[in-house]
């Protein structure tokens, strides 16, 4: 099957008056439809830069990005991007925050509104539709941000440390929660995180980046033999610590 996303020899550098900082060198990998891939690496290694490039916010200096087999400039693929903070706007209700993307893309219609309502119901935010974001807990806010992304029906989800602003307990449950939502909706996702256990508990494959300028040091496929494969159950499985140690070792050997 053709991969939904294919990166070939991506290079990127930041330019300032003081000079050039190489961020990414020779990054190549691909993601199949329905796959959940995690990207880990030391902080500041250019993980977020890579997401910005895939989403089209930044243009790579060299390299090729193909989506569904087409060059990214010609591709019409819908990419959803979830940022570290939920950035729900305080001057809008939860419901109209969720419609923000639809509004911008001129896709507001009875059908998309119904879809938004359905997602609100599904993820337990129905009774908060007309509340202000400040009335929601951290986990609920993150779920609202996910709905804002999902309502656009993205073919590929980019998650940029979406749980790192939450406290540890909420983070485990929201990670579990959102991980299952994405799996059940059969979405393709690329998660950037610095939390190794989060990566192992969510992903099918973990891509390990080196220090800056980042290149791929190893790709670890993650498979669990669980009857019910959820992030929280994975954390209790015996394989969990093996994967954790492999990734931990790989990251530290680079230093």
């Amino acid at each position, binding site marked *: 099957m053709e991969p939904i996303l294919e990166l070939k020899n991506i290079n990127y550098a930041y330019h300032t008056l003081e000079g050039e900082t190489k961020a990414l060198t020779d990054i190549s990998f691909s993601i199949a439809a329905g796959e959940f891939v995690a990207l880990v690496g030391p902080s500041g290694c250019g993980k977020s830069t890579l997401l910005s490039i895939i989403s089209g916010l930044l243009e790579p200096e060299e390299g090729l990005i193909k989506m569904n087999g087409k060059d990214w400039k010609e591709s019409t693929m819908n990419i959803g991007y979830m940022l570290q903070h939920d950035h729900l706007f305080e001057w809008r209700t939860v419901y109209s925050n969720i419609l*923000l993307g639809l509004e911008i*893309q001129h896709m507001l219609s009875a059908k998309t509104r119904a879809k938004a309502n359905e997602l609100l119901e599904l993820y337990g935010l129905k009774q908060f539709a007309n509340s202000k974001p400040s009335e929601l807990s951290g986990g609920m806010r993150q779920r609202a941000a996910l709905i804002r992304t999902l309502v656009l029906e993205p073919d590929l989800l980019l998650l940029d440390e979406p749980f790192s602003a939450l406290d540890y307990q909420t983070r485990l449950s929201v990670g579990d929660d959102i991980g299952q939502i994405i799996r059940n909706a059969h979405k393709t996702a690329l998660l950037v995180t610095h939390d190794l256990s989060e990566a192992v508990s969510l992903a099918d494959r973990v891509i390990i980046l080196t220090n800056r300028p980042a290149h791929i040091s190893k790709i670890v496929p993650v498979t669990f033999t669980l009857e019910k494969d959820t992030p929280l159950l994975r954390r209790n499985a015996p394989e969990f610590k093996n994967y954790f140690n492999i990734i931990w070792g790989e990251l530290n050997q680079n230093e």
Partner: protein
Amino acid sequence: MSEISVGQQSYLNMRKKHKRIVRVSRVAILLSFLFLWEFTANVGIIDSFIFSSPSKIALCFWGMVLDKSIFVHLWVTLYETIASFLLVTVISVLIAVILWCSKKLSEILDPYLVVLNSLPKSALAPLLIVWLGATKTTIIVAGMSVAIFGSILNLYTSFTTVDEEKIKLIYTLRGNKWHALSKVVLPSSIPAIISNMKVNIGLCLVGVIIGEFLAARDGLGYLIIYSSQVFSCVV
């Protein structure tokens, strides 16, 4: 909400007492100031020809209410102030938006705005009369000139300090610059715009009074300059 505990009740009483003290003290300060002024003027400690006195002012005001002249002056000044205030608000928001849209333009114009803002506007007022004539337009422009440059600078600063990540969110949702402006920058700057308006209304009044000092047949500024020229603290 049916039962109020003793602690809650005493807290509420304390708050009520606090509010009462604040209100009474405010009125008391005003009354004692007026009383002191009137008293010292009457017994001759201060010269009522130079300092006037509350009773004289009240009498004069009542006289102008009776012959209705005060309303003409009040209305003229109010009209000019509101006109220049509205113009300042609209124009400064527009210019701040344009500067926000073009980083180049804002960098080019920045020193000019700072210099224009620090010009002494009252010194410009005579020039305005020469350019525009002794009309209401001149006075409205004088009112605007005091407020507009500072207003543009403040609004532009508040536009540029909007969270970059929120703007990035708009771009990740496939929005463009216009969406960033209308969905993020303007709504999140509303508190700044309102506080800016509060400052502007005062500055516009100052500018309008300066204008009326120099080029008016009516208005509060005209009244002030007229009475200072005939050396009267009551008109």
